């Protein structure tokens, strides 16, 4: 029930108290999943549906010639065997660079390779059959000649003169390089009381979404219309890409995203086999479905986070950080990934490292090099886990060397809570954060002092526990500064159309969809509050380019902040229109009316005057009863984009408590804490769960996940049995608390929350393990921290 309050003027007004926003509302759209009744791409069937299987290169680098496909074509159920040349007749190639990433280079790429495969797993031929079984039966029947080429499998030697250049026309294996140089790092380091240096390694990882990548392309030749059911995060971006590359009018392409079984950035990119599957539907004039099987996923889903970073920090003896210096080398695939590019992750490492701190001297260098491995691109957190890992690693090492408590070290150096807006040393513009408050909160939350006591006691008994911290900032709510300025057609604008239906319920069409994070629920909360209806009467429509306003989709944690803002504005505008129309119908002044609980009410007393269903009935079915020029508009559209700041940063701090078995090298994660400031919290439970899920996903890369390659560029562990994702038994309980520093750049005040969780574990857990190992003067710096690496640090093996 809305509260009526008395303003200073004496007027009674409805208190703009949030009813749903800010509370932990259950997700209505979870119900179907609890019954198993979700609708994923593979659940969809169409008449004449065909299935495609891609013949993928078994070599990391090889020229190939398709010698004979006749036997494959003759196999039962096979409809067509299609090569890259034929697909190229309907689909144009692409180059994955962005104009604002100066100097970035990548060669043109085709949906299916024409004559050279550059990574193990690259599609070289398509086989379309009535069933997936039959298509797979035909794969070994194809005769292909392979001519292996030298393999670039090591990013650390990729730029050496003796190393083979993958694309000779580019001159070298360098995709992108950049330096940020602020202040005078060399001088500051020279004047520092202590300079600490360490090199950190991060293993290549991949997303392993529960639902593998899937799409169903349905081209209708008579209408020249393409419909794609796609498990993806950005339907409008896909619509734009398919329209342009297949030369179709934009509004002849419809992309539909129903339920998506996990995305995490893996499904925000357009894959060569996406284009190929659409091409096949066009060529064969029938619907074609492609679903990656799990083995294919490991060799074709984007990988990420393969970095080696040399970190240096200069500190004064009182703990003040005077300079950071980072050198980041990252190894991507043989092509930059389209359309967001594979240099963004490294670019983020440059801009985010050192982020929480006050230092004025900052230098960071990035080299992004091509390799003959699976292409890489944005994966949840995008660079933040690396940036935070190296920053927090070197800061805590400095604290250790100074004999300073690591929490005190952070307190001394973080940007003050009252010092905003400000610009960080890497050039980031920060609106407002709460590092100090968050640090105080986590100290209290984890009962830090007692934890240290416990650690000391147990150490005497030969039990080695460690505590580690990671302070982080996270980029969310991106403006066009991310992609638009670089020429990418990825929308920075999002919209909502809100409609009052004749029965008084509300439907909101929103350009941003969800893949399980609860976006539809928070939109319903916002809309219900903004309009004045019960949340159970709000339906959210997303995930269909034909049924929603144009939008950017889900990435860089923008759904709540940007999508949500458009919902708020549309909802508010609808409420205004309802009041305007009600004023005419009830013959009162608009200021005397408001909307609450699905009714038009007296704004002073709250008395119900007319049900919205009745108001809507008049508008839709009885305009004959309305005065002359009354034009009720019970559907409104509003848009929102991030303006003012290029991005809105959030902040947080995480802590990890571990126990290291020094005999086996096994690390037990005892507990994990996180204080998160994502601005206005729309639904605490959903934010908590985003953070927990992201933390565990981050833990994966820290403790056990790594795409292991041999010297021939072949993936050694590309299966669920050998690539070790976190399972329940080894994961800690995760405690989450919130601080709220709303953004003033929107009325909603919400920042993003979906990714920040991944940024903390690399630093927090590495620091905790190193804290546990400190009695042994042993350190680990290469993730994932396998038992062997811990034993090696201890000098045991």
């Amino acid at each position, binding site marked *: 029930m809305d509260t009526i309050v008395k303003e200073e003027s004496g007027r009674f007004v409805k208190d703009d108290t949030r009813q749903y926003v800010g509370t932990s509302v*259950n*997700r209505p759209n*979870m*119900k*179907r*999943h*609890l*019954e*198993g*009744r*979700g*609708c*994923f791409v*593979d*659940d969809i*069937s169409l008449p004449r549906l065909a299935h495609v299987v891609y013949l993928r290169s078994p070599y990391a680098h090889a020229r190939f010639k398709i010698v004979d496909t006749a036997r494959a074509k003759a196999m*039962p159920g096979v409809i067509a065997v299609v090569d890259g040349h034929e697909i190229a007749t309907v689909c144009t190639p692409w180059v994955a660079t962005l104009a604002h990433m100066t100097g970035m280079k990548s060669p043109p790429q085709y949906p299916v390779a024409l004559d050279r495969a550059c990574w193990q797993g690259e599609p070289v031929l398509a086989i379309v059959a009535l*069933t997936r*079984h039959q298509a797979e039966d035909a794969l070994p029947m194809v005769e292909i000649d392979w001519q292996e080429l030298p393999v670039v499998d090591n990013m650390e030697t990729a730029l050496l003169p003796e190393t083979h250049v993958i694309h000779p026309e580019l001159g070298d294996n360098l995709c992108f390089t950049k330096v940020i140089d602020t202040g005078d790092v060399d001088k500051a380091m020279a004047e520092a009381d202590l300079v600490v240096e360490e090199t950190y390694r991060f293993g290549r990882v991949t*997303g*392993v*979404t*529960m*639902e*593998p990548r899937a799409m169903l392309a349905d081209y209708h030749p008579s209408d020249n219309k393409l419909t794609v059911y796609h498990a993806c995060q950005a339907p409008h971006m896909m619509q734009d890409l398919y329209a342009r590359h297949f030369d179709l009018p934009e509004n002849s392409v419809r992309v539909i995203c129903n*339920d*998506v*079984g*996990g*995305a*995490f950035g893996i499904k925000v990119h357009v894959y060569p086999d996406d284009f190929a599957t659409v091409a096949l539907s066009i060529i064969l004039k029938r619907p074609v479905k492609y679903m990656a*099987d*799990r083995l294919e996923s490991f060799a074709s889903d984007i990988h990420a986070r393969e970095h080696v970073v040399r970190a240096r920090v200069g500190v004064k003896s009182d703990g003040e950080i005077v300079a950071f210096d980072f050198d980041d080398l990252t190894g991507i695939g043989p092509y930059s990934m389209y359309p967001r590019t594979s240099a963004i992750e490294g670019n983020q490492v440059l801009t985010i490292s050192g982020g929480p701190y006050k230092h004025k001297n900052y230098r960071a260098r990035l080299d992004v090099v091509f390799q003959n491995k699976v292409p890489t691109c944005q994966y949840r957190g995008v660079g933040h886990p690396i940036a935070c890992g190296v920053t927090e690693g070197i800061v805590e090492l400095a604290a250790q060397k100074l004999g300073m408590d690591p929490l005190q070290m952070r307190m001394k150096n973080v940007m003050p809570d009252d010092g905003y807006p400000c610009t960080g040393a890497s050039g980031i513009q920060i609106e407002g954060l709460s590092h100090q408050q968050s640090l105080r909160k986590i100290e209290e939350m984890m009962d830090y002092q007692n934890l240290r006591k416990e650690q000391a006691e147990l150490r005497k008994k030969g039990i080695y526990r460690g505590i580690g911290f990671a302070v982080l900032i996270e980029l969310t709510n991106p403006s066009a500064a991310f992609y638009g300025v670089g020429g990418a057609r990825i929308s920075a604008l999002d919209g909502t159309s809100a409609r009052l239906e004749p029965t008084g319920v509300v439907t909101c069409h929103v350009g941003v969809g969800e*893949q*399980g*994070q*609860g976006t539809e629920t928070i939109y319903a909360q916002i809309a219900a509050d903004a309009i004045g209806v019960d949340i159970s009467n709000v339906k959210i429509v997303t995930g269909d380019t034909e049924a929603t306003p144009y939008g950017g989709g889900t990435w860089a944690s923008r759904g709540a902040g940007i999508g949500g803002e458009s919902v708020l504005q549309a909802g508010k505008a609808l409420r205004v229109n309802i009041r305007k129309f009600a004023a005419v119908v009830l013959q009162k002044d608009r200021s005397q009316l408001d909307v609450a609980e699905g009714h038009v009410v007296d704004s002073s007393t709250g008395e119900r005057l007319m049900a919205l269903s009745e108001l809507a009935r008049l508008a839709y079915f009885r305009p004959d009863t309305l005065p002359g020029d009354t034009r009720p508009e019970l559907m409104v559209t509003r848009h929102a984009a991030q303006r003012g700041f290029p991005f809105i940063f959030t902040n947080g701090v995480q802590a990890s408590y571990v126990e290291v078995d020094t005999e086996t090298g096994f690390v037990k994660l005892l507990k994990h804490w996180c204080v998160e400031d994502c601005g206005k919290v729309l639904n605490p*439970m*959903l934010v*908590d*769960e985003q953070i*927990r*899920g*992201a*933390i*565990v*996903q981050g833990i994966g890369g820290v403790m056990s996940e790594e795409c292991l390659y041999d010297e021939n560029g072949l993936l050694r562990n590309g*299966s*669920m*049995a050998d690539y070790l*994702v*976190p*399972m*329940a*038994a080894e*994961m800690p*309980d*995760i405690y989450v608390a919130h601080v709220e520093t709303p953004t003033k750049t929107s009325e909603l005040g919400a920042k993003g929350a979906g990714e920040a969780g991944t940024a903390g574990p690399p630093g927090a857990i590495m620091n905790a393990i190193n804290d546990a190992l400190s009695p042994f003067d042993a350190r680990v710096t290469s993730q994932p921290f396998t038992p062997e690496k811990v034993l090696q640090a201890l000098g045991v093996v």
Partner: protein
Amino acid sequence: MAKSVQIVTRINGVEGTYQVDPRLHLVDFLREEVELKTSRVGCEQGVCGACTVRLDGEIIRGCLFLAVQADGREIDTIDGISDQGELRELQQSFHDHNAAQCGYCTPGMLLTAAALLREKPQATREQVREYISGNYCRCTGYHSIVDAVCEVLELHRQPSAKSA
């Protein structure tokens, strides 16, 4: 071309006769022949648990069981079991704790949790974590799932629950 085999199987309580290719695993059979989309494929290696269904009341990996083996057996999938009402408490608890996000692992996770409730009514939090370790979830990080299952375990341990 392999000889197809006739099977008679009861799926969610409904008996049917089917002619199946021996190589078709149970989940593909359910999805393609019976057009029941509620059990899923995630790895076809038996590791991820997305394919978990019930065979004669016990959980199995549907991707490691052939349709031909279902002859004379009873298969139950999540939707059928849910409609019987057996999972109500678990589903409510999952809902309240937000123990599902994308929903892909949820059928397998719920059926596994239901088996735990039956087999280990005294399970500790750690034992719950161990038991559901055969079900991969990438979205939740497991904490809320464990909370949800523990809540129902606790509910069943209340003296008043004995009569339920």
